[in-house]
């Protein structure tokens, strides 16, 4: 765990240095971000990364490939619901071990932009939790693709390399040119990281951000549910 934390902090420092240099060159602020906001953005991002678990372990896909998924399917539960419950439980632990430490690190060592309104703290937690649900939904879809692809490592790889930029981990989405910004906000990706960070920083309307997240959570879980139903029909169990 200590090793993971070190890596997390090192990458946070690298990202921070580069964006901070850009801010300096731009005269102190870009879009809605000054140096305190950028520090806050980077350290919340580093924390959320582990909390929402942007990059999963592709375990379900491996179980599809090996056939072990049959055991998961004949249990008296709804597979998607059960795995979601597991993931929310993981999130509870990750809150303490992955989200809180980088945020505390940022608060203690760097200028930090605390929310003016204390109500933002619980709203941020709510937003982060919805982000976790969406992240689960996306990972579930990627893993479920193994029912059709058998080897989904290509798609899994695509998600792993693309998600950082699309979700607003590497640079704030507000830094993008307008067309790219609009395109990204029309997609579910910013709901995974940028939206909770915006709730915390007070960028944009909280109600709108939360609605946007709830909408995508419902859509992605819905697609996952339908995809699972279809996938189950393809399963052939041979032998006992």
């Amino acid at each position, binding site marked *: 765990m200590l*090793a*993971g934390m*070190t*890596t997390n902090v*090192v*990458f946070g*420092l*690298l990202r921070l*240095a*580069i*964006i*901070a*240099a*850009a801010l300096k*060159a*731009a005269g102190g602020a*870009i*879009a809605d971000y000054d140096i305190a906001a950028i520090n806050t953005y980077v350290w919340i991002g580093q924390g959320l990364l582990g909390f929402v678990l942007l990059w999963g372990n592709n375990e379900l896909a491996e179980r599809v490939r090996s056939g072990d998924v049959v055991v998961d399917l004949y249990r008296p539960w709804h597979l998607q619901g059960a795995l979601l419950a597991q993931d929310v439980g993981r999130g509870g632990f990750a809150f303490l071990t992955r989200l809180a430490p980088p945020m505390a690190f940022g608060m203690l060592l760097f200028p930090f932009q605390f929310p003016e309104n204390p109500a933002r703290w619980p709203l941020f937690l709510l937003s982060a939790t919805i982000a976790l649900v969406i992240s689960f939904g996306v990972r579930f879809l990627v893993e479920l693709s193994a029912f059709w692809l058998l*080897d989904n*490592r*290509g*798609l899994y*790889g*695509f998600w792993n*390399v*693309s998600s*950082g*930029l699309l979700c607003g981990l*590497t*640079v704030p989405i507000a*830094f*993008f*040119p307008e067309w790219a910004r609009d395109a990204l906000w029309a997609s579910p990706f910013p709901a995974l990281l940028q939206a909770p960070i915006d709730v915390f920083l007070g960028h944009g309307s909280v109600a709108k951000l939360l609605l946007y997240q709830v909408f995508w959570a419902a859509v992605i879980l819905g697609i996952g549910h339908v995809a699972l139903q279809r996938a189950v029909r393809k399963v052939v169990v041979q032998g006992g």
Partner: protein
Amino acid sequence: MAEFIYPKLIGAKLRSQLAYRASFAVDFVSQVLAQCYELIVILVLFSQVNALGGFTRDEVLLMYAFAGAAFGVADLFAGQLDNLPTYIRTGSFDVLLMRPLGTLPQIMCSDIRLRRIGRITSALGVMIYALTHVPIDWTPAKVLLTIATPLAGTVIYSSVWVVACSICFWIVEGREFANAVTYGSNSFTSYPINVYSRPLRWVMAFVVPGAFVAYYPSLALLGKQDPLGLPGWVGWTSPLVAALAAVVAGLVWRFAVRHYRGTGS
């Protein structure tokens, strides 16, 4: 004998990867994309500012391309070291020790990841763009430097990989520590090092000799003064630094392997 075995081993690995063409193509494209996303980050930042640490967009792209190409090749050979914890935990490192060949070359040849060529290709593309768009007074020496830089960078990154992964002989699950240095130094070296804070710079630029992968050679090519105050000839020393790094890596690896204990089963 060894010289006949390695080409055969590598050849077998390459053929096995090309056997699944669709899978290979998808992996290849992911690698191209991965490199492009880093490029997009630089372009997005430069859509907001004109200079980063006093360097223009094309100058930063040159550093990014040197770093990307060197890292891609290093990853091709040394990236396999990321599997070292598995070898150690399961005891299959014993097998490597039994064979009459060096342990390090055996691991390096164990899984040449051909898809990394995707990363290298896109980095070379950006390098060509950057070299034709930055002001360089070309001399024969500078042509040599341009060719030597990615090669020296490859050796530096590979040495870093070897040293960082050697920690796994003591801390079996030390891979994430190692990744902070290996993948971290790729991110680090893609930008001018004067943007980083002093402690970070000391560790990642000089203890881990990341500054010699792209930053100093680029300064020498561009004929620019180092904002950090080192003299101009430093930009020409990357091959020496690479040789030194390789020697250190070799010694550390030997020392580390001596600390290996089998799992006993």
